[in-house]
């Protein structure tokens, strides 16, 4: 099915009104391929958990349970069935929204129902902040290439992107929570499972976004520099167009595909970084669910987390592809 769609897409004339249809069709092809990829990834998750030493029955038992007790627990959890069968059962439940049951008997969909939106909120805010800050800083630096400001921004961006999230996070907690008492040190949740106040989001969002801002600022800066070498920009400069207009109407649109690709990459990094940042700030997201589930060898929970994050990353990458296709349409 993926094959037929892409083939159709390739035969579509890539001009005029056909451009949109082309984009939509290739997008459909991409979606199908990514869904298949996700399914493969989930199979890998099940296989990988299988390869780890110990199993969920072991991990959730109490010390001193006899071999017979363990066998009973294994049977209760269905671990005595072949991994393929368990994987198939789990996959066939997916379309109905059934993510299975954790090794401790809780519904995985319930386990993720509050943490997942919380992580999306955290990641979304961090991505937004990354976008705004990196474009602003990149443009600012590119305004006078080689000037002191450019060098300062580029150097600090490099420095920042080399900082791991946990270093940033620990430093933020020390300075803004424990020394100055301006912001809460950790996130506490209220009765509906979401952060009890907006202030609790500030430090986790910063901790996640800062390294990504460093990375993306460099990308924006480099993309703008590349674009500035293009003949039409030189013409625009020689024509005496105002610098601001050249930036917003010529440079940025030209650099957009690269910038989008950079941000799309950051989505994966943000969700990965969330595991670390959520732990430090006790943020009630899926990062902590995932970390615990791996320790418990709890395949349905791990696969559930991978599935929902996989869908989000796929969606963002697709969006990025569309933006790039649209922005570079005429030239690519």
């Amino acid at each position, binding site marked *: 099915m993926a094959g037929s769609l892409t083939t159709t897409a390739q035969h579509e004339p890539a001009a005029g009104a056909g451009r949109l249809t082309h984009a939509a069709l290739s997008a459909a092809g991409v979606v199908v391929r990514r869904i298949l990829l996700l399914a493969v990834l989930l199979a890998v998750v099940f296989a990988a958990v299988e390869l780890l030493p110990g199993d969920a029955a072991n991990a959730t038992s109490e*010390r001193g349970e006899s071999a017979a007790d363990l066998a009973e627990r294994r049977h209760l959890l269905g671990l005595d069935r072949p991994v393929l069968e368990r994987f198939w059962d789990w996959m066939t439940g997916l379309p109905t929204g059934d993510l299975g049951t954790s090794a*401790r*008997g809780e519904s995985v969909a319930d386990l993720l129902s509050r943490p997942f939106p919380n992580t999306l909120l955290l990641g979304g805010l961090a991505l937004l902040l990354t976008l705004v800050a990196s474009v602003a800083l990149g443009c600012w630096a590119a305004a006078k290439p080689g000037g002191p400001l450019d060098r300062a921004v580029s150097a600090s961006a490099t420095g920042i992107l080399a900082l791991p999230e946990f270093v940033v996070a620990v430093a933020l*907690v020390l300075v803004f929570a424990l020394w100055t008492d301006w912001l*809460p040190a950790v996130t506490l949740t209220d009765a*509906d499972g979401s952060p009890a106040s907006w202030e609790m989001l500030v430090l986790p969002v910063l901790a996640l976004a800062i390294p990504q801002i460093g990375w993306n600022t460099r990308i924006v800066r480099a993309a703008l520099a590349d674009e500035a070498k293009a003949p039409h920009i030189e013409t625009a400069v020689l024509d005496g167009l105002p610098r601001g207009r050249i930036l917003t109407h010529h440079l940025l649109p030209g650099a957009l595909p690269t910038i989008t690709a950079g941000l799309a990459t950051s989505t994966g990094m943000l969700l990965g970084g969330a595991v670390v940042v959520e*732990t430090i700030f006790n943020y009630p997201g899926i990062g902590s669910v995932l970390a615990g589930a791996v320790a418990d060898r709890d395949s349905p*929970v791990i696969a559930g987390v991978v599935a929902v994050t996989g869908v989000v990353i796929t969606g963002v990458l697709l969006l990025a592809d569309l933006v790039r296709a649209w922005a570079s349409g005429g030239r690519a």
Partner: protein
Amino acid sequence: MNVNRRQVLWAGGGIGAAVLLAACGGGDETSSDSPAKANEKPRRGGTLRVGALGRASAITRDPHGTQANESDYLIISLVHDTLTVPGTKPNTVPRLAASWKASDDLKTWTFTLAKGAKFHDGTPVTAEDVVWSLKRLRNTPSGASRLPGIKPENIKAEGDDTVVLVSDYANAELPQLTRLTTFVLKKDTAEKDLGKAPGTGPFKLDWFRSGNARLVRNEDWYGGEVYLDAIEVKIFESPQAMANALLAGQIDVASNVGAVAARTAEKRGDIQIVRRPNDMAMPIVMRTTDGPFADAKVREALRLAVDREAMVKQVLSGYGTVANDILGTGDPAYAKDIPQRKRDLAKAKQLLKEADFDLSKTYKLLTTEDIPGLAEAATLFASQVREAGVKVEVVKQESATFWEKTWLKGDLYTTYWGTNDSVVFFASKTLVSDSGQNEAGWKNAEFDAAYKKAMATKDAAARAKILRELQQIEYDASGYLLWGMADGIDLAGAAVRNLPTLPGYGRVQLETAWLAR
């Protein structure tokens, strides 16, 4: 990969924060004494915010399930009552069971329920409810290890307020088994209602969400006056985040937060450090059946080669006590009069020589990073016994690998136990020849006989005497090297009063706590 990253994070983040805080702590060297005064009158009211460790993926609401999360266990034990609870002296005290007595053969135990005990919905607790709950517990996969020797059909109600348990064998300490997990629910509570089923405990569940909960006072509790209006339980995945929350004033109690946090808090005058002695045993296990440590002289030599004071000071940051190779240090029956084993390198070398121990070989000591200090203890031990000429290489194993491949099988490994208030507990679980978790593969007929005799002795004084003999044998010959006991450490804000100081699960008894504000 995630697990590795998390471990790095814990280590890095923890050390980073501790060093920085220590650096900015200034000259205030006085550790914070408890501001609580003995003559203060308890005040009624207030909400206590308690942080407890737990992972969102491991949440369990079933009172008879395996609660890996301290947060879950805390919530369950405040809402539901067990028949008995841990105490100091004696170490088993009444709760839902007001009293108990044994038959002469110590096999049949009769528990009488507390007068006026009611569920949160107002219905009185009956023996039928208790029997249903105990049977449900016994029929879980962990049931056989939680109520050893008691078959489900031997749990019976007699009238409205009496429950009879019949053990397969004489068991003088049977009430101890009913302390930690015998949570009582209403008969025929449906599986899907377990999370919100009414309990009989000092607090009622207001709400539960993703591991966090709010509990409100049970005005009708039969167990005495409860001072706090409410307790809010907050789940924390990392002790570091929990300590930060306490230091920033977001919570009032950080339960079981550990020695690293205590060291940080020492610099602050407004934080109470609650030490609960005898909380965690981290013994080194030497295999007795075969292998290089099968000779009792070799084991004795290693026990003499270890520098216990240094271990407590360095591994536990001083938050602990030196131990004497006998497990169950918190027990009133613990033999304090057996002389403390001290470091004696000359004698250790002598014993190794007598045993013809091969000093040219390097021996592997297997350990994990399951709990703080465990791997550090192994490393320090290795460097200490080197001074007696024994070469030990520490090998850290991933937790699951360790429990599957090394535990109960290895020649030399570290283990840990969080339940330390009873000599009999360890005797039955890890020391008797046929015990299920005989970690050192120890078989000692004399010890087995002493254990059987103690369990069949009704007279308390006579039993204490036999338990003393039992501990002497353990001290002389077992496969354990118990160098020290780690304190359990809670941190609390200045206004918190009357927190429990019992080791292990005793930390959840918050019904007597109150707030001076």
